[in-house]
């Protein structure tokens, strides 16, 4: 039940600095832990996060095992034109999730 939550002002003014908040459900298993029987629990994390605005990359991040579960990433951009913000998370074991939000610049 992977889920992502995005919060962004849907109708910003042109030229306004807008905050974008993203939250995604992920275990972020570090790879450093062991089960109760002593077996190593393999690493399973999100490794990259990329945000694009009408196809242009505006923000990206690399994630490492020290990042907590359910990574919450917020950043800012300037609302230049109406269009689509797309968010893409990729990680271990072929993990891939994406989410889109439309904004209408006034």
């Amino acid at each position: 039940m992977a889920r992502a939550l995005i919060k962004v002002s849907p109708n910003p003014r042109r030229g306004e600095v807008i905050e974008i908040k993203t939250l995604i459900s992920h275990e972020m298993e570090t790879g450093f832990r062991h089960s109760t029987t002593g077996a190593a629990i393999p690493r399973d994390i999100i490794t990259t996060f990329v945000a694009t605005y009408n196809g242009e990359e505006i923000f990206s991040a690399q994630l490492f095992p020290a990042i907590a579960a359910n990574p919450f990433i917020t950043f800012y951009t300037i609302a230049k034109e109406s269009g689509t913000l797309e968010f893409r998370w990729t990680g271990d074991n072929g993990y891939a999730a994406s989410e889109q939000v439309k904004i209408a610049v006034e």
Partner: protein
Amino acid sequence: MKRAALVPSAFAFARATRRLAGPVRRLGAVAAAGTLSSLSLAADIPLNERRSSYEAMSAATKAMQDDDSANPATLWVLDGEALWRASAGAAGRACADCHGEASQSMRGVAARYPAYDAKRQTPVDLEGRINICRVEQQQAAALRLESKELLALTAYLARQSRGLPIESNDNRLAPSIEAGRQLFQRRQGQLNLACAHCHDDHWGEKLAGNAVPQGHPTGYPLYRLEWQGVGSLQRRLRNCMIGMRAESYAFGSPEFIALETYLMWRARGMPMESPAVRP
């Protein structure tokens, strides 16, 4: 080695838990004097002095709880909503088929659980009620306690009571509240402490650098940063019991339900915060 090293800390803690008065108490300072015998039970916290541990949290953690898009428990709430609408079991019915919109039918419900079940003649907590419904109405298997699905459904239901006052005015719960109070005030574990020693007598002081809360269950199930996930009140109680080095009760046991019933009575009238965030 580790075990032996822990023993002196028991005495250090007993010294630290001596009640302090006035501004010193507020600073969370530690008294060096005092013995185990100085631990005596105080009366209940006066109603107007009760505080949710929300108030002791950092601004960042408060902001996390207050903004649904930053509160990771929202992920569980959304999963719970999906489960609410999904048909399950041999009956092929969803929760929503009988109960309709949870925002209407489940408003305020979590604020009065554990509630008395007349058929079973015992209090039942919210997790227990969900499982009774699953088995009897949906003819599905009960969800495992602390499973992601059950926590999601519980979080979704509890979310419908956010901001509403906790209710505890069913006389049939009185024996369970009393049993819970006995458990709350009973010394147990290798540290020989009762819940009341910290949460009635020494709230607001520090234990290992953390504020000792009054222990009101206003936000459960909640997202605990330490857990990196959502957990129930019983999981939190188990945490405390392990800290006291007592043997924890089993999830869903009558002891835990009695404690939950007592804690909800103790927090009666306080607003629900579910699903809360705690450090």
